[in-house]
């Protein structure tokens, strides 16, 4: 029932011991994410409290929860943008505290607004993203990536002129051009129309086919979240398996199917 597996961990209840003794979760090749007693606080505000989590490679995790519950914080921690306050974790087998660089090479993060520069064109944004990721692509590969998200006609327009949906598509294109082991999607459906959402679902399907692990934090249900092997609720800084009462209380409407009908 619970998605927590504690094989091979010699962890006492004092999780900071785990950190000191470098007792990390087993770097089991089958796991994409493993967190043990993972906590994150900002000042005295404890956003994530002692989270234990395991996500198997190639599977999808749907993360739900009320606003401000910490879903974005958790995703950012997994992307190594935030350092854990307590506890231990590995992503793709690499330690979160010490091997952040290796993690960033394998992980892609899509935020709600996306890291996109208004005064650069769609293609330039893509080029920036690729180069910063250490990739060297041919110009037509950029074009192809933009065509994949339906932006080939506006490839040379500045992002400032784009709608929210178009902006989001640039972000998706940035994600797509990198070889990833783990894709972190924060509210991927937000701001997208039916076609856009279908695009997200397509991408997630492709990720699953190529064995990329996917974690989606989303209010909205969609094909991708429904296909998830694991669905967890993040509430009061703690993770728990979802039950339907909980879903109703956190205003999650699995009834809004219209949005993602393909």
């Amino acid at each position, binding site marked *: 029932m619970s998605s927590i597996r504690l094989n091979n961990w010699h962890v006492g209840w004092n999780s900071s011991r785990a950190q000191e003794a470098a007792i990390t979760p087993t770097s089991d090749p089958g796991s994409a994410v493993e967190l043990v007693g993972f906590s994150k606080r*900002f*000042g*005295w*505000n404890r956003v994530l409290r002692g989270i234990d989590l395991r996500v198997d490679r190639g599977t999808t995790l749907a993360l739900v929860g009320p606003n401000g519950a910490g879903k974005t914080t958790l995703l950012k921690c997994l992307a190594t943008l935030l350092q854990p306050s307590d506890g231990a974790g590995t992503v793709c087998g690499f330690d979160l505290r010490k091997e952040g660089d290796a993690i960033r090479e394998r992980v892609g993060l899509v935020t709600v607004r996306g890291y996109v520069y208004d005064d650069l064109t769609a293609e330039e944004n893509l080029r920036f993203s690729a180069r910063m990721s250490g990739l060297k692509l041919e110009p037509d590969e950029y074009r192809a990536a933009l065509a994949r998200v339906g932006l080939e006609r506006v490839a040379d327009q500045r992002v400032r002129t784009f709608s929210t949906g178009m902006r989001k598509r640039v972000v998706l294109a940035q994600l797509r051009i990198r070889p990833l082991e783990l894709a972190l999607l924060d509210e991927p459906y937000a701001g997208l129309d039916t076609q856009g959402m279908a695009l997200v679902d397509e991408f997630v399907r492709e990720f699953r086919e190529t064995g990329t692990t996917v974690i989606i934090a989303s209010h909205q249900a969609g094909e991708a979240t429904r296909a998830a092997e694991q669905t967890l609720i993040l509430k009061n800084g703690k993770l728990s398996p979802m039950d339907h009462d909980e879903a109703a209380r956190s205003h999650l409407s699995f009834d809004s199917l219209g949005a993602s009908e393909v």
Partner: protein
Amino acid sequence: MTSKSGLANVIGIAALALFLAGSFVGLFVVPADGMQGDIQRLMYVHVPAAWLAFLSFFVVFLMSVLYLIQRDLRWDRVAQSSAEIGVVFTVLTLALGSMWGKPTWGVWWTWDPRLTTTAIMLAIYVGYLAIRSFADDPDKRARWAAIVGIIGFANVPIVYLSVIWWRTLHQPPSSPRSVSPEILWTLMFNLAAFTVIYVYLMMRRIRLAKLEGELEQRMAYHG
């Protein structure tokens, strides 16, 4: 806990006693310098204050490095305390230096290397304390402060050397030979007295910082 505050009290009394003794000797017992007259007696406070200003800053530097390595807030508390005490002594040094300068050189301020460096060090101290006021998160606060403390301190010797090249007005450091033994011993005594004062103030301030930290933590959980 009572034994610690008991120890602090003892040191406090010792500090007071040494200070009074040193001041008494400096003011009334030791003969005044032949050339400068009584105004020279200011040196018995000015020099120890300057010594403490720099010692405090060195402690800030050391604690900052320790904090960044170990991430233990205890080091940060010591750094903060030392910075606050150091500011007081820095201002004292500048004020006394200025007071001494007026009758001696005829001006309230000169750009001599030590005074200038001390003034710049004051600015760096103020920056250190100012940046602390912008973070509510104690770890963030400690981290920023540590960075500023380290770079700030690294700057001090460079500033000093630059200003020396730029100006050379300050009295060359009194070497033991050119100063009468009585003046030297009184100076040493006062130096020791001030160091004890520093230790006492530090003990009190660090304890206060610890309590402040606990209060902060409690308010955050209940607020």
